[in-house]
Structure formats: C-alpha cells, structure tokens
C-alpha cells in the first residue's frame, strides 16, 4: 500500500527551453527558481543526484561575518537579503535560522585584529556588535572562559542546504521547470551542428550517486584550465546534448560546482575552478542550545582567504535542529581525495575543544568530506561568457556557495531577462582570468 506511485520520476527532456541549468546543487536550484519565476522555461540537468556534490557536503553557512570588504562581501550581503526576504516565506522548508555568528578571539592581539575587521565590515553595512570577554558566557554558556572577546554578527544564518536545493527545484517544477537527474551533459550544441567533445568519454552517467558518491578522479580533475585551446572560441552555445536527449536553448548555465571547469572545457573555454577539500565532523545529539550561534575562531577568515595547499584548520562550531553539533572546517588542496584524513579530523576536534572544552567527552558520529570549488582569486564566476555566447556561469563559490546561492540565482535571472542586475557582476566575470586578472597563480 504505497500512498504515492512507484517507478522512476524522470521527466522527459523537452527539445527546447529558454534556459538549461547544468547542476542540481543549490546554486543551480536557486538560478532555476528565479529564472522560472521570471517566466523562463527552464530545464535542469545533473549527471548525479539532487544536491549530490558540494551542496550535500557542507554546513549550510549563510555568513557575512567571514568576508573581507570587497565584491564577495557585497554578494554575501545581497544574498543574505535574498535568503531572508525573497525566499523568507519558504525558510521553514530548509530550516533557515537567523542564529547569528559569534567570532571569538583567543588573545588580545587577535581581538584587536577582529575589531579592525569588524569596523571595516561595519563601514560596508554589516551589522556587528563587539562583545567583551565578560559578555561571552551569557551568549554562549559552554564557551571556553579563556577567550579575550569577540564579535557578534546577527545577520549570519544557517540553512539545510540539501533541503534548500531540493525544495527550490520542487518549487521550480511546480511552475513548469523540468528537472532531470542522472543526465550528464556530454556536449554543447554549436551552430553548424558542431558539438563540443566530451572532456571524458561520455556515457558514464551510470556512475551511481554522481557527485559525492563518485570515486575520486571520476571525471578527472577539472579540465578547464587556462591553457584550454579555445578551439570553439567565439562560437555560440545553443543547447546541450545528454544521453537522454538534446535540448536547444539560447542560454545554458554552468552551475556544476567543483566540476564546472570540466563543463567549461567541454565548451572550449577555460575556467580555473579547482577542488579544495573540507571535512565536517558531526557529534552525537546534544541537548538543545548547547551551542547557540555559529561560533568560530577569529583566525577562520585567514584560513578561508588562504591559498596554501596545506591543511588549513580553524574551528567553526554550531548546533543543528536535530541536536547534533557540526564542526568545520578544514581546507586543503589535495584533488578529489575523499578518504578521512586523521590529521584533518584531529585538527577539527582540537579546534572545537579549544572553543568548547565540554566537547572533549562528546562522541563523534561521522565525518564527511566535500570539495569546495574555488578560483585562484577566491571569487565566484557569475555571468555570461563572451568567449562562448549563450554560455553562462554560476560557479566557483568555494565554501560560501550555500550562502551566496540565493543572490547568485537572482542576479543570473535578472541578467538573463535583460534587467540590470542589482549588483555589479564585473568582479565575477568569467573571462577575468584571461586578462591576467587572477591574483595568484593556480595549480596544486
């Protein structure tokens, strides 16, 4: 007695659409939702499952506190507003919680640096309140008493990112969008019948689980390096080819996350999106309000901004609705290696205990790895690609993709429908790496 029918729920691919979104993660889902809302006929395809890549392997951060003033902070503020306002009515579906971030400095020197950053952020419109060492216990009773002080960021929030992606896609489907998982884009339609050749042999869509479940090295390293020959440079993209059919569309959005470089490579354009591995440790369920905010150490911002290949670890500790406590986050550039690394796990545990000594006797239930898609200048890629007209990108959000997804989706929809985007997309331009705009050399 199954209350809902059985069998595959695959929707057939239509032959045409206004927009094809590649990637059913949270960025693709947000773009699909806002584009559908703007009246576009949208098709979403993913080689794996819904939220099967980085969206399913993070903590659900919607943070403004960890960004230095600059384009990313502007995008973060904008996106936080979209999460809270445009999507605010749906927040319950994906456990949107305005819990606030508490950044903790362990030494007077670190507190001084935190105050300086806070002042610069405040000048850019971030709400931040300085917290003295004496005030910390009232905010976080279980926090170490060793801390010198901190800063409270009430705008910091949290979502359950897999639910956010899945519900945004459900809402888009209700308005007519078509979502097809296990449909890998193996080529692009180009005028004159040319299609891009696959970066890897096509037809490996049978790889179950796609994204997260795929073994390391599946789909290879992101292929779209700077040295891509640009064989098809300048030739428009007019649709996609998948093993389940071809969809013609005037716009194709690359929201393939960590694999976005490979998708760009398929279109003959270079996009230096690389994986940066992160682990998140999950504890046994603890009593409610054991950890009340997103609590992290002041050196987290440095780790986020760092380009070192080595293991970076600074603790981010937060509770969840289910009672478990999530402990992020490490960052290291090791390609697509998913095996738990004792050094990373140890660093997470040490950092968390440093902030909350009571966690030492709490049991860990699991640890998971995700691959954050990052660009050499640590900025996402958002907007049309002039090197392949018709191809758009929304990728490279690194560890901030959940928080930045809502704003990214809305901006993409504005630009696609010819509206002026509410935020200048120039800093996120896909071709910026061609003109030597990248701050740092890439490579692992």
């Amino acid at each position, binding site marked *: *007695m*199954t*209350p*809902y*029918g*059985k*069998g*595959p*729920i695959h929707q057939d691919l239509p032959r045409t659409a206004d927009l094809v979104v590649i990637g059913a993660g949270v960025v693709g889902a947000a773009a699909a939702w806002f584009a559908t809302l703007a009246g576009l006929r949208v098709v979403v395809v993913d080689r794996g*499952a*819904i*939220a*099967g890549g980085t969206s*399913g392997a993070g903590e659900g951060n919607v943070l403004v506190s960890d960004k230095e003033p600059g384009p990313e902070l502007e995008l973060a503020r904008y996106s936080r507003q979209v999460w809270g306002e445009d999507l605010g009515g749906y927040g319950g579906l994906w456990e949107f919680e305005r819990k606030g971030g508490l950044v903790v400095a362990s030494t007077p020197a670190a507190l001084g640096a935190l105050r300086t950053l806070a002042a610069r952020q405040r000048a850019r419109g971030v709400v931040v309140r300085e917290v003295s060492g004496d005030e910390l216990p009232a905010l976080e009773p279980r926090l170490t008493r060793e801390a010198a002080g901190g800063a409270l960021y009430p705008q910091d929030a949290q979502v359950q990112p*897999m*639910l956010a992606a*899945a*519900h945004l*896609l*459900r809402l888009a489907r209700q308005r007519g969008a078509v*979502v097809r*998982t*296990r449909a890998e884009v193996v080529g692009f339609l180009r005028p004159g019948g040319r299609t891009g050749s696959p970066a890897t042999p096509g037809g490996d869509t049978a790889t*179950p*689980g796609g994204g*997260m*479940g795929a073994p390391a090295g599946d789909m290879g390293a992101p292929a779209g390096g700077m040295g891509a020959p640009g064989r098809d440079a300048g030739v428009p993209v007019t649709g996609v080819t998948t093993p389940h059919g071809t969809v013609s569309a005037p716009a194709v959005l690359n929201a393939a996350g960590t694999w976005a470089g490979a998708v760009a490579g398929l279109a003959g354009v270079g996009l230096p999106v690389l994986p940066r591995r992160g682990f998140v*440790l999950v*504890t*046994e*369920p603890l009593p409610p309000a054991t950890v009340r905010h997103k609590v992290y150490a002041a050196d987290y911002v440095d780790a986020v901004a760092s380009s070192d290949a080595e293991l970076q670890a600074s603790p981010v500790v937060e509770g969840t609705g*289910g009672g478990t406590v999530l*402990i992020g986050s490490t960052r290291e550039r090791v390609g697509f290696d998913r*095996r*738990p690394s*004792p*050094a990373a*796990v*140890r660093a*997470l*545990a*040490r950092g*968390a*205990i440093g902030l909350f000594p009571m*966690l*030492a*006797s*709490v*049991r*860990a*239930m*699991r*640890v*998971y790895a995700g691959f954050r898609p990052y660009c050499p200048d640590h900025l996402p890629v958002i907007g049309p690609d002039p090197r392949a007209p018709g191809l758009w990108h929304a990728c490279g959000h690194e560890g901030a993709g959940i928080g930045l997804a809502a704003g990214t989706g809305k901006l993409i929809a504005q630009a696609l429908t010819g509206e002026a985007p509410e935020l200048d997309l120039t800093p996120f331009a896909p071709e910026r790496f061609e003109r030597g705009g990248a701050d740092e050399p890439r490579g692992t």
Partner: protein
Amino acid sequence: MATDRPTYDVAVVGAGPAGLSAAVGAAEAGLDVVLVDAGRLPGGQYWRHDDEHSTPPRSHGGRLFARLRARLHHQRDLGRLRYLPGHQVWLIDRPRPDGGPFTLRLNGPYETAPVERDRVRARALVLCCGAYDRQLPLPGWELPGVMAAGGVQALLKGHRAVAGRRAVVAGTGPFLLPVATGLARAGARVLAVCEANPAHGWLRHLDGAVRAPAKSAEAVRYAALMARHRIPYRTRAAVTEILGEDRVRGVRIDGGEVLEADLVALGWGFTPALELPLMVGAATRRDLDGSLVAVVDARQRTTVPGVLAAGETTGVGGAAPAVAEGRLAALSLAAAHGLPVDPRTVRRLRAAIRHGRAFAAALHRTYPVPDGWTDRLTERTLVCRCEEVTYGELCRARTDLGAEDPRTMKLLARPGMGWCQGRICGFAVAAVTASLTGRPATAEDLRPLSARPFAAPVTLGELAEMVDEDEEP
C-alpha cells in the same frame, strides 16, 4: 617511548570463528599477530558464552572452539600473538596509501598497556568482522518486547536471561529454530515459529545439505527439540503487524489471525558489518541473500593489497566455512612471507569452503527475504528508528524532492543519520528506495548505508589526541 611500538605482520580484527582461526593459524605459521576483538571473551556471536571457563554446547562446534581457544592462549603465552579483547577498531588508516603498514585506532579498556590502548600497527589485515541481525521494519516493530532474534539469543547465551514469557519467533531461516528452542528450554512458552517462506526443513529442500551432513544432523536435532517443546512450526506464515500500545500485546499473521504474546523475536538473516572493508577501500558486491559483502579471491584477498577477509565479511555462511576461510587467510599470508605451506592443507580448506558456501547458497535460496515485504509498510511505519523517519516521509522525499537513491534519501529525509548510523535500517532504506523507484536494490544502493567513517564510537577528546604515525621517528 613510542619508538619501540611493534609493527605486527598481521592484525586480525574479530575473534569469532573466522578471526580466531586466522589469528591462531597465522601465529602457528610463524607470523607476529595481533588479534583485536570487541568482545570480552573470544568466540564472537556464534560461540558466545558467559564466562571464561565454559564452552558453547558440543552441538554448536563447542569442541572446535575449545581447541581454538587453547591454541590462542598457547600462542599468546609463547609471545607470538597479542590478544586485545574488549577493543573496538574505530579507524584504519594507511599513512602511505599504496603500501606500508596500517594503523588501527582502538577504543580499549583502560587496564590495557597504555602503548597499545589507542592503536596498533600492522603490515597486513585479516578482517573477520562478523554479522548482526538483519532487521525489516513492519508496523509496530518499535514496541518494547519486539527484539531481534539474535538479541534474544545473545541474552540467553551471554546472560542466561529470558526476554519474555509468551513468545512468537518470526522471520525466515534456520536460525529461528535455535532461538525458539532456546527460549523454550529457558522456560518461555513459544506459541509459534512463523517461517515466511514455504520451506519445511533443510533435508527435503536442500541439495546442498547432502554435502553438509553435520548441518543435516543439526536440523534433525532441532526438529526433535521443536517437537519435544510442542512448538508449532508454521510455514508461509508472515507476521504482518505487531499489536500493542506501549508494549507488544500480540502479532497479526498474514493480515488475519492474532497470537497474543509479550515477546516477538524477529530474524530475517544477517547483515555483515562492512565498515572496515569499505573504510580501507575494498571492493564489495551484493550477495545472494541481498547483503553487501567484501569481494575476495581464492586466497581470501580483498581488492586492496595487504587486506584479507574471512567469514561473514565475505558472505553470510555460518561457522564452518568461516573457520576454514580464516585458516586459509592465515596460510595465504604465510605463503606471502615465504613460509612453508602444505598444499594439501590448502586443498582441504578450499574443499571445506566450497562445501560450506554451497550449503549457504542453498539456504539463501530457500529462505530469501520475501519479495514485496515493503508493501506491508504504512504511511506511519517507522523505517529509521533513531531519527524517527516514517515510510510516508521516504515516499514524499522521493515524489516531492526527487530522492531516487539511498544517499540522496539520507540527505533529504535523514534515515540512517542517527545513533546507529544505518546499521539497523540500512538494508531496509536501500530496499525501500529501490522499490519506490521501481527497481531491485543493488550494491550501489547498499554501500552508502554500509560505509561509516568511524567504525565505533569515539570521543572528540580521543580524536584530538590521535597520534600521526608519520610524526614518529
């Protein structure tokens, strides 16, 4: 201080029939062995007993166990085998991924020598991790008084405790019989053994049984015991619902008849514990009985160099092939070390394994988990008890949110995310997800619910104190 920490030739994980045999065999062949076991006493689940001096009954291979135990103690006394009972392996890592020794991180009791309390290092592994009861959800299965058949058995064997007075034993497979007769001998009234499959007995239905005369004798003995205790054996009889408010009051059979009972023991076969094989990256496959098992070759080698597996880890087959496989794994390691191995012994072991596995295959074919068991689930039936996820919620995660594989199901509806990390509901979630999407469950469905980053509970404090082998001189 840590510099003289030994690197063993082999670490055997598990001291059940396969692990005991592997550890003793490897030590006797001349290898340095460490045997790590979660149990306080050797023997595993099959040879569970209640104190150091007792043995399991003779009918259960008690003499074989007693011999293996004596050899274990002998090798330990000679200093060739280090035996670590009461230790759980929670992580295995290999600092140099494609070679070099493995580090096994342990949770041990505090009386153990400090240097080995937290970890051991070994150049090869024999994983003999055993199996636990396979559970299938059905309406009311979460009520107090409903137990896994193996749990009922463990209480009887390990603590001589009876879990109820009026019992129904239900599910499928020959394991229901010792549970029923054990309960009856301990004083409970067993109202019925409900066998979901049509099979009556092993003798009539199993070609494979001809080649396992010991097993046939066992079947005859159980049949006699069932008769003596006047336990009705009902075939094609499935418990479709468990009745009760705050505890079990009875069971409904095939949607009709009600038997009033205060204990329901459910057994649907076994699920091998695959955490460690998956953790080291060994290839796995779906066995005849639907369980995920480690792939091994004719020398018990998994697909990962230096990692061998034996017993239920490679397919549920019972103690007899497990003992032979453990021994073969030991000889295979000895041969790899250039030690002499008698080819006749190897031939004899392979023959024993072939026979044991053929018999197990016949059992799996005779007592499958019945098709369509998911049809008994209702909107409100709990599938994942830890996170209290109902069948209805799984259905909606598929139709509304697009979850079509167990991993996505887990991320969107949370089955398998709680305390047991999918140990109890993993098989069911894989089967339900596959059935909802209109296909049979595959190994790919089972893997995400069988892999666990920590194979046993570990505190953050222990994680923080983890020593990196590479940091040592």
